[in-house]
C-alpha cells in the first residue's frame, strides 16, 4: 500500500476516533440534594473526562422509578446511567438487565466501600451498581426538652422508653408533640418504619414457605404500639405525613423525637433550614425484643443498563461519581456536612468529616449494623430490612401501608387492618406463584 494512501486513511481514522469519543450519556437520577450537587459538578467531570458530555434527567423518586423500570424492562435504551436503590438492584440483576461491574480500576478502591452497602448492591457475588449514598435510620431528639424534663438518653433506647418520654414531653396546646413518625401510605414511606418496628418486635413479613405473617402476634403488637404511640403523642394529620412533612415539623421545633432516615441529619444540622440545629441530639433507632432489623438500610446507586450503547463512558462516569476524589470535591465545594454519606470507610475516617458532622459515628454504626440478609428474629426467605426484595413488594407494601394508615386514623381497628392486609397479600402471593 502506497504511503500516500495510508496517510489519508490514517488521518481519517484519527479524526474518526476523536469524533467518536465525543459521546453524550444520559444520566437519570433522583432529585435529592446530593444528586443535585452531582449535577452541579458536571463541569468538573466534563473537564477531567474530555469527550464525554452529560445529559441529565432529574425526577422525583416515584416518577423516576416508574420511568426507569418501564424503560429497562422494555429495552427502551433511553438511559445510560440509572440511579436505582438496593430494592431494584438484585431484582434487575437477576433478570440480566444490568451490566455487572467487575474489573473496577485499582484506584477506585472498591474495598473501601462499606460492606453491608456493597452486599446490598451485589448479585451472585458481583457488584451491579456503585453506591452513591447510603442511609439507615436513627432517632433524633431535642436535647433541650430532654434536659428540661430531666431525661438522659441511654446508649440504646427501647420503644417502651420512647413511649414514656413522649408522654412526658407531649403538649398539644403548644404544638409540641411527643413524637413524630411517618404515617403516609407507601412501601417506602410508612411501611419502611413500620417494617423495622415489626422486625424489632420479633416479626417478619413471610415465613420460610413464603406464607405472609401479617396477622401474627408480633405484627399485632408492633402495629398497635405504633398506632397508639402516634395517636396519643403524635401530631395531627399524622396519616398523611411522610419524611418531608416530618422533617418540616421537626425543623420548626414541633417534635420532641423523630425516628427516621439518617440522611435527615445533615439537614437538621443546617441552621439555614432548621430552627433546632443547636438543640439536636442523636441516638440509635429504638429496639423492642431484638435489635435485629430495628434500623433500615437503603442506598441510592448508579447502574448501567444492559441496553445502553455507551457503557464505557457510563462506567467512567459512575466510577468518578462514587470515588473518594468526588467525595473530597464535594467536601471542598459544598462543605463536609453535605458530602454523600454512608458509602466509604474513608469518609468516616476523614478528620474533616468527623469534625463537621458529629452524627457521623451514629450513622456509620447504623449502616454497618444493618444486615439485609439477617434482619428478623426468626429466619425469613427474603433480603431487605425495611422491604422484601421481591418484585411484588411495591404493590404489597403500599396496600398494607394503606391499611395501616386506616388503623391510624381510626377508620378500622388494628386487627381488621392487619387481617385485610393478610388477605390481600395472600392473594398477591398466590397470583405470583409463591404459594403453590
Amino acid at each position: 500500500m502506497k504511503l500516500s494512501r495510508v496517510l489519508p486513511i490514517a488521518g481519517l481514522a484519527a479524526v474518526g476516533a476523536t469524533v467518536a469519543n465525543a459521546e453524550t450519556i444520559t444520566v437519570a437520577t433522583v432529585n435529592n440534594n446530593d444528586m443535585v450537587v452531582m449535577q452541579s459538578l458536571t463541569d468538573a467531570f466534563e473537564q477531567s473526562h474530555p469527550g464525554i458530555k452529560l445529559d441529565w434527567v432529574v425526577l422525583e423518586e416515584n416518577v423516576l422509578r416508574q420511568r426507569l423500570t418501564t424503560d429497562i424492562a422494555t429495552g427502551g435504551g433511553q438511559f445510560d446511567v440509572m440511579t436505582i436503590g438496593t430494592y431494584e438492584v438484585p431484582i434487575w440483576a437477576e433478570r440480566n438487565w444490568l451490566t455487572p461491574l467487575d474489573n473496577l480500576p485499582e484506584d477506585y478502591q472498591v474495598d473501601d466501600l462499606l460492606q453491608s452497602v456493597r452486599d446490598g448492591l451485589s448479585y451472585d457475588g458481583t457488584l451491579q451498581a456503585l453506591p452513591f449514598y447510603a442511609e439507615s435510620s436513627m432517632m433524633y431528639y431535642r436535647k433541650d426538652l430532654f434536659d428540661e424534663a430531666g431525661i438522659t438518653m441511654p446508649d440504646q433506647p427501647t420503644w417502651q422508653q420512647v413511649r414514656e418520654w413522649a408522654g412526658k414531653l407531649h403538649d398539644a396546646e403548644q404544638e409540641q408533640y411527643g413524637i413524630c413518625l411517618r404515617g403516609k401510605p407507601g412501601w417506602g414511606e410508612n411501611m419502611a418504619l413500620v417494617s423495622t418496628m415489626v422486625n424489632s418486635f420479633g416479626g417478619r413479613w413471610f415465613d420460610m414457605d413464603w406464607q405472609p405473617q401479617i396477622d401474627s402476634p408480633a405484627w399485632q403488637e408492633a402495629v398497635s404500639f405504633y398506632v397508639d404511640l402516634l395517636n396519643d403523642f403524635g401530631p395531627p394529620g399524622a396519616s398523611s405525613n411522610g419524611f418531608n412533612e416530618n422533617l418540616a415539623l421537626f425543623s420548626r421545633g414541633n417534635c420532641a423525637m423523630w425516628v427516621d432516615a439518617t440522611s435527615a441529619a445533615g439537614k437538621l444540622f443546617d441552621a439555614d433550614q432548621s430552627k433546632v440545629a443547636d438543640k439536636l441530639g442523636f441516638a440509635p433507632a429504638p429496639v423492642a425484643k431484638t435489635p435485629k432489623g430495628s434500623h433500615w438500610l437503603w442506598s441510592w446507586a448508579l447502574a448501567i443498563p444492559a441496553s445502553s450503547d455507551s457503557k464505557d463512558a457510563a462506567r467512567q462516569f459512575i466510577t468518578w461519581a462514587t470515588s473518594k476524589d468526588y467525595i473530597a470535591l464535594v467536601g471542598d465545594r459544598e462543605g463536609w456536612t453535605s458530602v454523600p454519606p454512608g458509602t466509604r470507610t474513608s469518609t468516616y475516617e476523614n478528620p474533616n468529616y468527623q469534625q463537621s458532622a458529629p452524627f457521623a459515628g451514629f450513622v456509620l454504626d447504623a449502616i454497618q449494623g444493618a444486615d439485609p440478609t439477617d434482619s428478623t428474629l426468626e429466619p425469613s426467605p427474603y433480603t431487605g430490612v425495611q422491604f422484601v426484595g421481591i418484585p411484588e413488594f411495591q404493590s404489597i407494601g403500599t396496600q398494607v401501608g394503606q391499611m395501616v394508615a386506616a388503623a391510624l386514623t381510626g377508620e378500622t381497628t388494628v386487627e381488621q387492618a392487619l387481617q385485610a392486609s393478610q388477605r390481600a397479600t395472600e392473594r398477591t402471593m398466590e397470583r405470583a406463584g409463591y404459594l403453590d
Partner: protein
Amino acid sequence: MTTARTHSVSGASASPVKRSPLASTLLNRRLWLGVLGWTLALMIFFPIFWMVLTGFKTEADAIADPSLIFSPTLENYAEVQSRAGYAKFAFNSVVVAFGSTLLALLIAIPAAYSMAFLPTKRTKGTLLWMLSTKMLPPVGVLVPIYLLFRDVGLLDTRTGLVIVYTLMNLPIVVWMLYTFFKDMPKDILEAGRMDGAGTLQEVIYLLLPLTLPGIASTGLLAVILSWNEAFWSLNLTSSQAAPLTAYIASFSSPEGLFWAKLSAASTMAIAPIIVFGWLTQKQMVRGLTFGAVK
C-alpha cells in the same frame, strides 16, 4: 340587515345618560357587582398567590406559620435557574403545546363546521364516539404505547409528543368548536351566502371572525391541557424533548424541604401561560359589530 346593531359588552345595557334618574342606583349595582366579582376572583386566585409568594421565602419561612411578613429572597429563583435548563424545557413546552393545538385546530375546524352546519343523522353518534375515545385511562395503556414508540423511534422526540397530544385533545377541540359554531346565529351566514360567498370564503371571512371567542377559548384550553399534561410528557421523554412538566417534577418531593423551590419553579412554569391567557381572554369578548363585518 341594514340597521347596525351595537352589542354592548356589559350586561347593563343602555348608556347611563338615558337613565340619569337611575344613575345612582346603577352605579351602586356596578359597585356591588365589582365587589362580589373581585372577592370571588381573589378567593379563587388565593392559593396561587400564596404559591407565588412562597417562591420568595426561604425554605424555613415556607414551612413556618403563614405570614405575609417575611424577608424576601431570590435564592430560590437562583437555585432553580442554576439547576435545570429552564429555556430548554420551556421551549419544548411551547413547541409541543402550541404545535399540537394548531394541528388539532386545523383538523377540527373543518370537522366541527360540517357537523354544526351540515348535520347528518350520524353526527350525534360520531360526536359521542369521538369523546369516548378519551375514556381509556393512560395508566392502563402506558406499556403498549411505550413499546410502539420505541419501535417507531419516537421516544424522547417533540414530534412524538405533538402527535400524542393532538390525538389526545382532538375530541375535546372538535366538541367545543362544534358547540360554539352551533351557537352562531344562522342569519349571518345566510346573509353571507346570499351575497354569493362560497363555502371556503364563508368559513374564513365570516365564520372565523364571528366565532373568534369560541376558537380562542378552545385554543387556550387545548394549550393548557397540553402544557400541564404530566403523564405522557414524563414517560415518553428523557432529556431532549422533556417539557416543563419534567422541570417541575425535578423540584417536587425530593428528600428535604422543597416547597419554596417548587413554588418558584411553578411560578416560572405558569408565567408564559398566564401571559397567553391574558392575551387570549381579550379575544373572547365579542365586541364586533355586525355592520363592521361587511
